[in-house]
C-alpha cells in the first residue's frame, strides 16, 4: 500500500504501453484501463492525479504541490496531502498506479 514517504514515486501503467484514458465529469471521473478493458468511476481528485502520473513518476509531495499551485487551493498542505494519499491508495487498489 502507498506510504506517506517523500521518496516513493507513483506512476501509471500507461508508461508500459498500456493505455489509460481519463474522462472528467462534474462530480466524478471515469477511467478506462486498456490492460484489462475495465472502466472505473473514481472521485474527481483521482481524475486529476492520474493524468499527472501518465508521463512521469511523481512523489506525493510533487502531486500535492502541483494541485495547490494549479488549482489555487487554500488549505493546509498536510490536509491536501492526506487526500492525495487516500486517492493514490484507491488508484493503487485498482492497479491504475504503482510505486517505483
Amino acid at each position: 500500500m502507498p506510504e506517506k514517504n517523500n521518496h516513493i514515486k507513483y506512476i501509471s501503467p500507461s508508461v508500459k504501453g498500456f493505455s489509460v484514458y481519463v474522462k472528467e465529469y462534474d462530480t466524478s471521473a471515469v477511467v478506462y484501463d486498456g490492460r484489462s478493458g475495465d472502466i472505473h468511476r473514481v472521485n474527481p481528485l483521482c481524475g486529476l492525479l492520474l493524468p499527472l502520473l501518465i508521463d512521469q513518476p511523481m512523489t506525493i509531495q510533487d502531486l500535492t504541490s502541483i494541485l495547490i499551485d494549479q488549482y489555487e487551493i487554500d488549505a493546509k498542505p498536510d490536509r491536501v496531502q492526506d487526500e492525495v494519499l487516500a486517492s493514490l491508495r484507491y488508484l493503487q487498489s485498482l492497479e491504475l498506479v504503482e510505486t517505483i
Partner: protein
Amino acid sequence: MELNLHLRTGPFHIAIEEFETPFVEDLQRLYHYQIAASQAVKNAFIDFRISVKASSFLRRFYRPQVSFFCDTYQPFYPLPYSQTLPMFEWGFNWCIATQAHQFLQFHAAGLARDNVMVIMPAPPGSGKSTLTAALMHHGWRLFSDEIVMIRPTDGHAVPLARPINLKNDSIDIAQNLFTGNYFSQRFQDTHKGTVALMAPSRTSVDLVDRTQIPTHIVFPRYEAGARLEVTSMPQAEALMELVTNSFNYHMLGEEGVKLAMDVVDGCECMHLKYSDFDDVFCFFDSLANAQ
C-alpha cells in the same frame, strides 16, 4: 423443412435455410415487411445463414427438440420443439452480439420520433419491452427492444426493427392495449417464462435505413401504482451503466469506450419511474416536442 427465406433487418441480410414447418407462418408474419423488402436484395451478401431444425430425425418424434445453427456452428444446447421461434430470435441476437463488432452494441431498447432518439438500457423485469411496445404503438419508431447499435464512424444509432419480445404478464397487457399489431402464438415454459413476439410497426421497418444520433438515455423502471418520476442522472453514472450493458465495448477497446463517452456526452440522461402509459406518452412526446 428447407425454407431458404431471405430477410433484411437494418444492416443485416440473413438467409433462413431451414425452419420447422409449424412455425413458418408466424415467422413470415412477424417479419412480413422485411421479407418483402428482401426480395429486391436477394443477391446481397448474406451476413448470417441460420437454420432452426430438429436435432435429429428421431427427435422430431421422441421428446421433440430443435437446435439453432449459424452456418454449421451450434452455439446452444437444443430446446423443446415448441420453442422454435423464440430460439430463432435468441439465436439471431447471439449472431449480432458475437459477430457484429463493426458496431458498439448495448443491451437496450431504442426508439425515435422526429429528431429525438432514446436509448433505454434496463435490467430484466424493469418493463423495458412492454414500454417499448407501448411507445411503438403510440407512434414512436422502433430501433430495437434488445440491441442498440452505434456506428463508430459517425455515432449514429442504427435501427434493426425486429419483433419485440414480450414476457409473461406483459403479453396480456400488450394484446389488450396495442390492437392492430401482429402477435405470435405464446411459447410456454421457456427459460424466460411465457414468451410472445410482437411485430414491428410498418413505419419502423420502412424507415429502417434512417439512422439517428442518440439524444436521450432513459433508464426506465415500472413500479405498480407509482406516479411518473423523472430524475436527472449524472453523466458519469449513465456511462458506467451504459457500458455495463454493452455486449462488446471490450472488443472495441479504447475506441469503444470513447464512443460510449461520446454517446453519453450528446445525451440527456435520466431515470424514469412509471406505472401509467398515458403519463409515459406525455413525457416522451414532450422530449420529442422540445427538440
